[in-house]
């Protein structure tokens, strides 16, 4: 770590003003689960650290009048993994969060921090993509709402500008009859993923798929949407054979990178196939139980 000046932020206004002043020289510290490691290893050395963990406007989560779920940037994993009253497929957020890293990390890590880190091996980019989330940002002079698909740009890179703060993530309302699955493979419990396939399925009255969304994670720099695989599902009742066809299509949708030890691109592609098949079956079965 190198020397830096630490500033406690007391309000959103104060934070965006400080960001406007310091720009690239400042780093925003919330739970510190990524930033502190990077600072310790001198991968980043910000001159100013803006501590936002006590900013009141960023700390809550809840449903909006339009039934969308708004989660503040500094809401910790610990809160989301036990969040009561999540509606429909939003339950996925609690389930996925409870399976990230370990409890001591979850006590500190924040939802906003995870999204801004944009580590492709982490769960939140995939979660945001499969739930069609929007990222809400503020700067001193503007507000933006960025779809997840445009937020994640590259490895550890988002479309956030240096004077912008991620204030919240908005998950749109989802129909009740939605089934979902989030299949992650890692070597040890709590590790970063080697591959993730998340799936969301909405059924019509005839147990046929009306809408499907399939997102592949941890294989490339950003989450990949397997649109062709999705279209194979629409209008169909899901069988094991169809799930396997969908899985093959999901495998074709991604070009995995060789960016982890013990995980060749070929292996990652095979994993995507297995996980996609399991995710589709599970999401379909679950959707059938949620009329």
């Amino acid at each position, binding site marked *: *770590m*190198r*020397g830096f000046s630490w500033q406690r932020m007391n309000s959103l206004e104060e934070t965006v003003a400080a960001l406007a002043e310091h720009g690239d020289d400042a780093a925003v510290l919330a739970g510190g689960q990524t930033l502190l490691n990077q600072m310790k*290893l*001198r991968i980043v050395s910000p001159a100013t650290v803006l501590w936002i963990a006590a900013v009141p406007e960023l700390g809550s989560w809840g449903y909006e009048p339009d039934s969308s779920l708004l989660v503040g940037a500094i809401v910790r994993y610990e809160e989301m993994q036990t969040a009561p009253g999540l509606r429909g497929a939003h339950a996925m957020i609690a389930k996925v969060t409870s399976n990230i890293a370990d409890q001591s990390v979850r006590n500190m890590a924040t939802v906003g921090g995870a999204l801004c880190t944009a580590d492709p091996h982490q769960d939140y980019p995939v979660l945001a993509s499969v739930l069609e989330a929007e990222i809400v940002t503020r700067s001193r002079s503007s507000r933006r709402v960025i779809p997840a698909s445009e937020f994640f740009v590259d490895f550890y890179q988002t479309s956030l500008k240096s004077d912008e703060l991620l204030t919240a993530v908005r998950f749109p309302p989802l129909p009740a009859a939605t089934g979902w699955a989030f299949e992650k*493979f890692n*070597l*040890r*419990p*709590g*590790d*970063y993923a080697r591959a993730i396939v998340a799936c969301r399925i909405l059924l019509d009255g005839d147990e046929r798929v009306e809408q499907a969304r399939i997102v592949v994670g941890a294989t490339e720099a950003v989450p990949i949407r397997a649109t062709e695989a999705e279209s194979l599902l629409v209008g169909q009742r899901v069988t094991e054979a169809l799930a396997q066809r969908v899985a093959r299509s999901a495998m074709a949708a991604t070009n995995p990178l060789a960016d*982890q*030890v*013990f*995980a*060749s691109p*070929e*292996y990652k592609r*095979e*994993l995507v196939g*297995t*996980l996609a*098949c*399991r995710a589709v079956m599970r999401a379909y079965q679950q959707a059938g139980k949620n009329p």
Partner: protein
Amino acid sequence: MAEKVTALAPGSLSGSLIGKPVERKEDLRLLTGTGHFVDDLRLPGMLHAKILRSPVAHARIKRVDVAAASAMPGVRAVLTARDIEGRVESWGDLMQDLLVGDRTAFVKGKVLYEGQEIAAVAADTRYQAQDAIEAIEVEYEDLPAVVDPEAAMREDAPIIQEGITYEFGDGRNIFDTFRLKCGDWAEAEARAAAVVRGRFTVNRVMGAATEPHGCVAHYDSSSQLLTLYTSTQSVFMVRDVLSKVLHLPRHRVRVIAQDVGGGFGSKAECFPHEVIASVLSLRLGRPVKLMLSRAEVFLVGTARSGQVRYAELAMAQDGSILGYRDRVVHNVGAVSAWGNQTLKIGSYIGLLPYSIPNVDIEGYAVHTNQMPGGALRGFGVPKTLWAKEQLLDMAAEQLGLDPVEVRLRNTVKEADCPFTTSVGQVIDSTSMDHCIRAAAEAVSWDRRRQERKPYTGVGFAVCLKYTSCRHPSLDTDCDAIRIRLETDGTVSVYSSGTPHGQGHETMLSQIVADHLGVDFRRVHVMSADTATSPFGLGTYGSRSAALLGTATREAAIKVRDRVLQIASHILEASPADLELTQDRVQVRGVPEMGLYIETIAAFAAYKSHQLPPGVSAGGIEESVSYDTPTDRPDINGCGNWSATYSGAAHAAVIEVDPGTGRISIIDYAMAHDSGTVINPLVVKGQHDGAFAHGLAWAMYESVVYDEDGRMMNPTFREYYAPYAADMPELEKSFEIPAPSTVIPGGHKGAGETATGPVAAAIANALYDATGIRFTELPITPDKVLMALREKERRGTKSLVFPNDMPDYEGPSWWSEDLVRNVRWDAL
């Protein structure tokens, strides 16, 4: 037999403490965070040092410019190779029988591996030292790195250690050899009903101890004493090397190890950072702390040597093993710490528990541009087992025999002992045959072999590990204890051991309490300090229960005899009529006639008129050094290098997920012979920990280098040390003691036995589950899945992965010329 071991408070116990699960004395301070580790030390005026390490694996250094660094705030000294030239020697030859010292404090002209030391800075704070390190300019001229050990053996391979002329042959980077021969392999091959072969490769793994390596050096100019507090497994090994390297007399160098947060072999030598901190303190006259970061430990903290083994096993129709042949390439990295010794001992002990009549092993220790090959739990033995225990299953399958039956047929059995094997090992006692039966029964071996379930398999492997060993080069196996009965009846124990998790304070106190009749809680074992401890080798090789245990027992008996001599004079009773119990000497059958032990100790020191005629006043203090009755190997590598042998039989039941390649251990049984157990709590802990290292080696960990010799995974994010959640329950752990007949207390080692069989047991279970014979470590899900896909593609019933060798012809680099030109010397 697999009883749950529960700790008992010493106050609740009566009678002999040997064999009782006495609560560990170490636990309170370690579990409450009040232990004393190196980084806890804060000496007045202490400076902080950091080391600049090479980012490349093989390069000539053209220029090192420290001008900017020297001028930075807080910097007190900058040290490079040039500053110590001619004043600080190289080392490696004192303990390890290297013909030359190949270890240096700093790179000498040419970088040999990534992370090697280039310069060091001492500054007022750790951050200033780090800032200055980053300001040092170094110009490198890159050289091609040699990462593959078989490529390193080619005649046209670049020479890594240029300045050293080895007598084992020209070029080829071979720096040591080992040969073990008995009988006639060709005859065994001709007679055999089955001959099986394989090219087995072994990954490099690390100790990954909780406490990183690090030290505080403090040179005091008034006493001219250099004190080094360090995280080590052997204070005397560090002291003797350090004093030789620095040209200081040994009595002016003091090495102290307080609590040590694990070692597993990775701290059993003197490291460059220990020399560098000492030089900085000698120059500055101030204490200097030098802690390695986790990333530095990953780069230079030594790793198990890698291997490529071309192994063959010949078996008769009845399952008897007739012969074993092996050509071993042993990758010790750029510098051999203990690397060559693990080749020798590993190959020799790894043949056990079988006495194989025809053995032909040739081993070549080879340099590559990788980190030094150190000692690591099992000291080479697990690597031989990895190949041999799989070959045994392969041969059994060909002959339609049950793997457990074949092991029972071939193992040294309890009734045979003492038994001399074909290569000269004298097995004093064993319960190996009982261990095999117990482990097999615990997993319902016979039923599981009959009821086949897809992707579920059962595997077996065994290990008979030396407890204490005379290394071929280190011609001693000594450890020592000094016991002083203090004048208040408490007992101070000074030990040559340097424990780092083995529970010596507890174990040695139990022995003293038993033999001296004093309360366990009144015995205190001091931490390792060359200024106060008796001389000995240190803590490694599963030696302590046997070596320190015996020295403690004999020293305690000597103290007891002196107590009884004085008591007999005062009580006017023959020593034979006296007993020592509950801190008191009393006349047998007349308990009211007696003296408290503190009274006797005080009389001995302060009231000489109470002493028998001819006995002069003084403290009651006795010292015993113990060396095991072991042999040096003969010219063929044969002999009894080891004192006594601990056994392990492991049975694994696994399930494979054919969609992801993940292996789940659904049942695991271990049966061990650790001789007479001193503390079952400690022994169970050692077995569980040794299993964890075996599991890590088999399925999780590996030091991965790219083709330029750069380590790809020097962080715990990608160096996959298994978590507690990855461990199976290990409830089926059996202890079947066959007390040693060589070691007076019957003790054997327990620290490494459970590491050996794990990888082979899992690999054998994997074959049973999938038909895939794995010859490469570690067995990770990616490889398992790709092997399953390959097998499907070929449509075969079984597959050797990744090396299918239907036309086995032995290693490509092997030639008559090579064997002729290499100097063979078992020592």
